């Protein structure tokens, strides 16, 4: 008995296997909070479950059929795509330029990096409320300043033309700092000898950026691009706090609409889950495609 036990322990703590023990807690967390809910939403999407959780009926694929005919789903997907297409590249370019500019650890650069990183640490809800007040046409400061030039007070967040661009701006302002810090770390990892050698050959900073920094940074860019892409598809809090999807659903993103269907009367969790599943597949396909393209590119370089 004791021998068997000790051999089991020995096996468990074997050098080759002990690693699994270390990742066990994370695996459990991912299983309980990611994989099981994911499977559950697949199943709930096939039912007419509501928030009272009472006797759901199996309704087959009718939730999916309904979503294809729902104009607000298409509108929400279109809004989400335009949000992703605007925020992800702009945020990356700003972060890249600033990272290249500020990567040397001088006192001034460090201060700038901290300032740009500060919004990342703030809660999106607090930022949303702050912008709501700043942009409000009756009490806000920004419309007041604009009115000094134009002579009239514009409602910014409740105007179909400006609402989405403003939300994109808030998101970029909030999150480019995070991308920048990761890119700074990536740039610092590039061997200084490459820059020295290129300087001897007469390359200026712009040239160095395009021929040394950028290619060497591709794996890091790959990572930040994918994570910000996934995050952007799931955008919710900023929309929820600032416009709630309005005006005229012009800022209603997919997650906002899913939340609206699931958590307001009549609480159609089944329908909401079916749309969540659709969003999952859209993100999965796009991210996998993106990953393949980027990784092939990286392979070609190295």
């Amino acid at each position, binding site marked *: 008995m004791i021998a068997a036990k000790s051999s089991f322990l020995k096996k468990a703590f074997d050098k080759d296997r002990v690693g699994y023990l270390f990742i066990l807690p994370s695996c459990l967390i991912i299983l309980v909070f990611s994989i099981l809910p994911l499977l559950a939403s697949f199943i709930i999407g096939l039912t007419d479950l*509501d*928030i*009272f*959780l*009472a006797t759901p009926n199996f309704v087959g694929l009718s939730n999916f059929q309904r979503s294809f005919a729902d104009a607000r789903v298409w509108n929400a997907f279109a809004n989400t795509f335009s949000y992703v297409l605007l925020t992800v590249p702009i945020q990356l370019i700003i972060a890249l330029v600033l990272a290249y500019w500020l990567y040397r650890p001088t006192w001034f650069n460090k201060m700038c990096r901290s300032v740009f990183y500060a919004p990342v640490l703030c809660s999106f809800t607090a930022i949303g409320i702050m912008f*709501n*007040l700043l942009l*409000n*046409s*009756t*009490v806000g400061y920004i419309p*007041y300043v604009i*009115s000094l030039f134009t002579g*009239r*007070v514009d*409602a910014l*967040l*409740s*105007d*179909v033309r400006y609402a989405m661009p403003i939300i994109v701006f808030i998101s970029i302002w909030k999150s480019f700092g995070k991308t920048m810090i990761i890119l700074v770390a990536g740039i610092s990892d590039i061997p200084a000898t490459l820059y020295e050698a290129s300087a001897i050959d007469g390359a200026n900073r712009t040239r160095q950026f395009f021929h040394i920094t950028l290619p060497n940074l591709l794996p890091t860019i790959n990572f930040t691009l994918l994570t910000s892409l996934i995050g952007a598809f799931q955008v919710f809090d900023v929309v929820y706090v600032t416009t*709630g999807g*309005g*005006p*005229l*659903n012009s800022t209603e993103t997919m997650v906002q609409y899913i939340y609206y269907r699931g*958590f*307001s*009367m*009549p*609480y159609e969790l089944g329908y909401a889950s079916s749309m969540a599943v659709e969003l999952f597949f859209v993100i999965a396909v796009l991210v996998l495609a993106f990953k393949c393209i980027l990784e092939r590119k990286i392979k070609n370089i190295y």
Partner: protein
Amino acid sequence: MKKVFAIILTLAIMTTVFASCAVAEEKVTLTFWNGFTSTDGDVLKEIVQRYNETNDKGVTIEMDVMPWDTFNEKLPAAIAANQAPDFVLCSTGYYPSYVKAGSFQDTSDYYERPTVNKDDFDANVVEGLRYDDLIVGIPMQLVSHYLFWDKDLFAAAGLDPEQPPTSFDEIKEFAAKLTNPSQNQYGWLIPVDSNVVAQYTMFAFGGNYTDETGTVSMLNSPENVAAFEWMYDVYANMKASPTDSDDNTYISGQLGMFINGPWIINGLRDNEINFGVTSVPAQPGQEKQATIIPVGFSIPKTTSPEHKELVYDFVEYWNSAEICTEWTQRCGTPAYLKSAQENFKDDPITLALSEPLSYGTVALKKTGVSPVARESLYPALEEVFAGADIQTTLDKYNEVAQGVLDSLLK
């Protein structure tokens, strides 16, 4: 030796734990959820605290206050999982889905208690909490909506500060005088993400969301078209309403008149706005209408009969003339107990607040206003204000509203 010490220590700890459990059992804790997150929540907390200290049954009420949205997300799941609180506060607009799901117990036996006088309650309020045979809650508060006006802005615009408008024609006339875009000052406010003002405008012209049964959408009726024409005129032609608004807009001192609930009064007072309040008028020839929103004490089906009785004790404490008077004084909501109304005979503001109680009704009682308003009224307002044809837009959203009603009544 070490082992013995460890065992003794463990036993000692366990004894203490069990002993403290035994002591705790003599006291009863009632859990209580609600969405009173504003300043009125502080008053509620104080009154609950006072009850905890003074009641002779050893009852401690543990109150959990959360925003109503959170409340409505948590409570159904808690009831399904048998983890629900002993009692809750629920507002009229939220009741229909709980009633449909059978989440709350019948509370008609409350009025059979020997110490309860049913006649002291405003009958309209008790009726507001009845769904067919089910008395779903016992009154805790009642609110309606009112017309507020800023007396200083009235005087500055050459209007009589003591004469509020008596019809929607007059509201339009006054709003034109009170609006001054260069000062960012407006005469009236029509929010596109709230049902209240649009609803009262429809009422004023003799319209409503539905027919009397509450099942057939009437959004495109001629009365409602007239109401939308009025709103378009004020909003788009006269530009007498700010295009976006939040709670601060009402208390910014830049609004000549507006419709809102009594909860805005404390904010107006804090900002030293010299305001008047009256019931919302109708157009000439139309009867005044109003919605009333009773908030009720409700008991989830998971609560035991013993705890239900203890909850009733607290509800009785709440529905005494003393507490009802205090709540009215401190929170500005009208008193619904006749014994408490006696105390406000010389208080013009509270009298004005009580006026709609006699003729007000619960809007869309069977389905709740918010799902219908969000799917049809808000987009209709936004599209009409953006210049869409009123009749076509209302025809379109009448169909949408009917679909929502049908799915909710299914």
